[in-house]
């Protein structure tokens, strides 16, 4: 293309496009980000991209923002970091805020009430399928015995004793780091 766009704008646009077309949360945007980062702009090569993805997967937090932060910083320092994150987060966040604002305004109308009621069975099934996938992943990586043991304890801790999930997750970390290697 004949037009030269400033690099900060290019960073913003690349992540804006990848995320606005990524329907279904962060993981769905990964191939689109690959397309922008590797194919279109050549900011990273194939190996660098997969290394970065590996690092991203071993850190907590949303994956799309981790990729944006890393690439933005790599290309254009802290301004790039901010431009990439802005492109990733702002458009969909603003859309959600305005959409919900409209819905909340008509909270009492039977139309909106019907909508919030009907969404519950879908969310329930969606969560059930996610539960199933997560459980299958757990069994696939640490086996049945560890998975069932951790899940049982987590169920008691969260459901019965109402322990904050943060503590339960930290305990699970410790179990994974120190007990699983012994077996």
């Amino acid at each position, binding site marked *: 293309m004949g037009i030269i766009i400033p690099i900060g704008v290019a960073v913003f646009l690349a992540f804006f496009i990848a995320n606005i077309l990524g329907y279904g949360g962060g993981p769905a945007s990964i191939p689109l980000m690959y397309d922008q980062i590797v194919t279109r702009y050549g900011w990273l090569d194939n190996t660098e991209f997969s290394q970065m993805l590996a690092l991203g997967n071993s850190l907590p937090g949303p994956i*799309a923002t981790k990729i944006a*932060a890393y690439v933005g910083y790599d290309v254009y320092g802290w301004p790039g970091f901010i431009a990439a994150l802005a492109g990733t987060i702002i458009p969909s966040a603003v859309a959600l805020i305005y959409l919900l604002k409209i819905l909340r305004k008509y909270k009492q109308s039977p139309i909106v009430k*019907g909508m919030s009621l009907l969404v*519950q*069975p879908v*969310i329930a099934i969606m969560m059930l399928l996610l539960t199933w996938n997560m459980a299958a992943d757990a069994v696939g990586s640490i086996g049945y015995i560890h998975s069932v043991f951790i899940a049982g304890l987590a169920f008691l801790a969260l459901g019965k004793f109402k322990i904050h999930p943060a503590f339960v997750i930290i305990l699970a970390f410790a179990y994974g780091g120190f007990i699983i290697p012994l077996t």
Partner: protein
Amino acid sequence: MKNPYTELTIGMMRTGILGFGGGPSVIPLIRHEAVSRYHWLDDDEFGDTLAIANTLPGPIATKMAAYLGYKLKGWPGAIVSVAAHVLPSCIAMVFLIAFINVLSNSAMISNMIAAVMPVVAVMLGQMAYEFGEKAVKGLGKVLGITFFAISFLLLQVISLHPGIVIMMFLLYGAFHYKLKDRLKNKKTDRKEESA
């Protein structure tokens, strides 16, 4: 600790740091902070927000974080909430790239992350149960189970995207009470006729 900014920062930072396994795994954590711990909104509102968030493109967790912050404190709240949620891991990403080989090849770290998965599964399962319970309470047993079956069919058997399935249900939901009223009126009409 009544300052909403402090609550937002602590709550959203905790969900950002402990949310392993991508977007969906962090939803129960956000729900815990927003509904059970700090009462920023009730469970119904959380469910609506999650549903609408799924119909829009872009990362789920950051959209939820932005909305929660906005609800509490307007735009500054949205910025604080999103920043608290994403910055710790984003900054870690920039500085840890030097240790990439150590981190992504370490068996200890992959075991630690894998050990969190059953916990996340339990949390997702609890959410599924609670939303299912609410659906049955609101819709009645017959309709509730019918809609579970339809959702399962669309999501799992046909593999439609969740955002699209939610949109279909939202569309029907908009007419649900109208249809229900019409059915009720017909029944009462018939009763009046026979009487």
